């Protein structure tokens, strides 16, 4: 068949020539099975995001940049909403970024402890079960318990507050205000402590799965070569599971600007603790409590669009950085 003849064939004819009946029925099956998830994706993700862009540029039913002006005014000025304690959006955002950065700081100690558990240290089974408890109980339960532990209840101090008071002598103003979470000087640092301290050493299910997939012979080779434990972790386990680790970093970066640490339950954004994750959720909750309504979606949509515009280069940058370390195939 000459080139001229190929050019004359229609798309339908070309497909018919390239794929036999069996192939085409397999394709039909694939598309059919993907249809419902794809439709759901189009409605709940694509449409929502397109509508979000449209709403961001609408004010009073007309095209306007007013919502963006509001967002940019509040970047450095006090926030309009009472929920954020007159904090600027930049400050709120900085708190979310702090959560991401501190998460990075504790990532490798976490992976190392996970590796120690994977290599079956003494009591590993019991430890990994215990370490999962805060995650298993879920945010609500653990947050409410931790909250009680750093507060003043009646005349008595919660156990963590009592311990901190015994060690560092907490000021009277903090005690009088009702505890560490009810004073602007201590609330944020307490939230950080409550978020990260229970998880510095931990057990990561997905990472353990990745360690388990490393062929045992590689450890044997390392043992023969006289690798110590830390070097074994660093030169064998880390490169071989980097692809899994990098997913954690990349997905973390994708949500960097929306970081939250249970602010809604701990402080409802008061005492200088609002984060962007909390703020966006709270705006939605207020909107839902008002029953929705035209004109109310513009500001949150503009805020979301602004955050997305900043997030995308950050996330792609982290993805690029993670890609600098080459995957090791095995």
């Amino acid at each position, binding site marked *: 068949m000459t080139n001229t003849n190929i050019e004359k064939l229609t798309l339908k004819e070309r497909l018919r020539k390239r794929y036999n009946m069996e192939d085409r029925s397999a394709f039909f*099956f*694939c*598309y059919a*099975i*993907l249809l*419902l998830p*794809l439709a759901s994706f189009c409605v*709940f*993700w694509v449409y*929502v*995001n397109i509508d*979000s862009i449209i709403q961001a540029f609408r004010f009073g039913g007309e095209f306007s940049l007013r919502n963006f002006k509001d967002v940019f005014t509040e970047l450095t000025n006090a926030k309009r909403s009472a929920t954020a304690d007159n904090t600027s959006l930049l400050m709120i955002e900085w708190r979310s970024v702090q959560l991401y950065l501190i998460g990075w700081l504790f990532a490798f100690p976490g992976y190392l402890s996970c590796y120690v558990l994977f290599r079956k240290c*003494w*009591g590993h089974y*019991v*430890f990994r*079960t*215990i370490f*999962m*408890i*805060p995650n*298993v*109980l879920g945010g609500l*339960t653990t947050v409410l*318990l*931790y909250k009680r532990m750093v507060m003043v209840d*009646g005349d*008595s101090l919660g*156990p963590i507050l*009592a311990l901190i008071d015994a060690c560092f002598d907490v000021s009277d103003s903090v005690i009088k205000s009702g505890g560490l979470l009810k004073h602007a000087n201590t609330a944020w640092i307490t939230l950080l402590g409550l978020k990260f301290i229970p998880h510095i050493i931990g057990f990561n*299910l*997905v990472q353990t*799965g990745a360690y*388990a997939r490393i062929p045992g012979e590689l450890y044997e080779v390392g*043992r023969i070569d*006289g690798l*110590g434990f830390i070097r074994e972790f660093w030169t064998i386990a880390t490169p071989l599971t980097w*692809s*899994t680790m990098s*997913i954690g970093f*990349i*997905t973390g*970066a*994708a*949500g960097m*600007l*929306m970081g939250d640490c249970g602010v809604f339950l701990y402080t409802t954004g008061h005492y200088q603790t609002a984060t962007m994750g909390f703020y966006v*959720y709270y705006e*939605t*909750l207020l*909107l*839902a409590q008002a029953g*929705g309504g035209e004109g109310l979606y513009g500001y*949150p*949509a503009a805020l*979301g669009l602004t955050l*997305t515009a900043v*997030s995308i280069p950050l996330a*792609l940058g982290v*993805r690029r950085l993670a890609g600098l370390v080459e995957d090791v195939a095995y």
Partner: protein
Amino acid sequence: MFTAIRRRFSDFIAAQKLKKNYHRNKNGTSKEGMSKRVVFTIFTFLFLVQSFICLFPLVWCISNALRPNPEFYANPNSLFTSLHFEYLGPAIRAVRIATNGDAGFLLAVWNSFWFAFGTQFLNILASLFVAYPLARYNFPGKHFFYGIIIFRITVPIVGSSAVGYKLELALHMVNNPPIYMIGAFNGFDMNALIMYGYIKAVSKEYSEAAFLDGANALQVLFKVVVPQAFPCALALYVNSVMGQWNNYQAFLVSLSEYPNLAVATYKMEGARDLVGGSDHGAISNALFYWIVLLSGIVPLILFAASQKLMIKNMAVGGLKG
């Protein structure tokens, strides 16, 4: 000849050295084996401290649930001295008060149940529907569909929840559980990626044999691939259910007329804060801690029952493309 003997001798010495190294490392008597023992000892100590940090809130909660108010306020940081189960009944009844009469305890549990188990079942099913063709078939557009998953995971589109609520209103999903659940049938997510990796790693031979025996694609999916991928799907399902059991955010925004146990717990906490201190009145200390315990018990049972399964089956590969 001398060179050959010398080479064989040095090979022999090297082999002996390796053998010795291996056994010393295995027995933990070499320098390297020692390093492992030192790391393990340090981490065992750290793990003990961490275990205390993780367990203490739970033990404190159980202790507070089991003792009456006066005993708690006399010494809030001590453990119970006698067991008082009589607060369990009032705690269960208090759910109705906490939800302003919208739901009793059983209804709140039911709302938690259908939300966690139902929506996550649909989500995992959708993930399977996405992962299976991507892992097993080569069809035009395959890379596009895979790209959607990677795009969703890595490219952040944030802050669209307010407009998402607008869509929910338009589709009558707000306070409408059956329609709300349909929204969960969205498989282009992390679960699909994990399942994609799992199905790809599973042997194709059974599927091919089934095709040879005359099975159609749907039969192969449900009678061969689903049983093969079941451990992974179940692990993901249990993990997702545990995560959603105490979801209060969706219930406060979109399902406010269907309060679940988490919402009851959250509202009870708010009520305690309003009353303040030891004058909680109807909302006694023990009631509050019982509700907290009740809201956490299902995820704990699920985890205890499925821990091994989850560890074994949850692994995720790299992001390509």
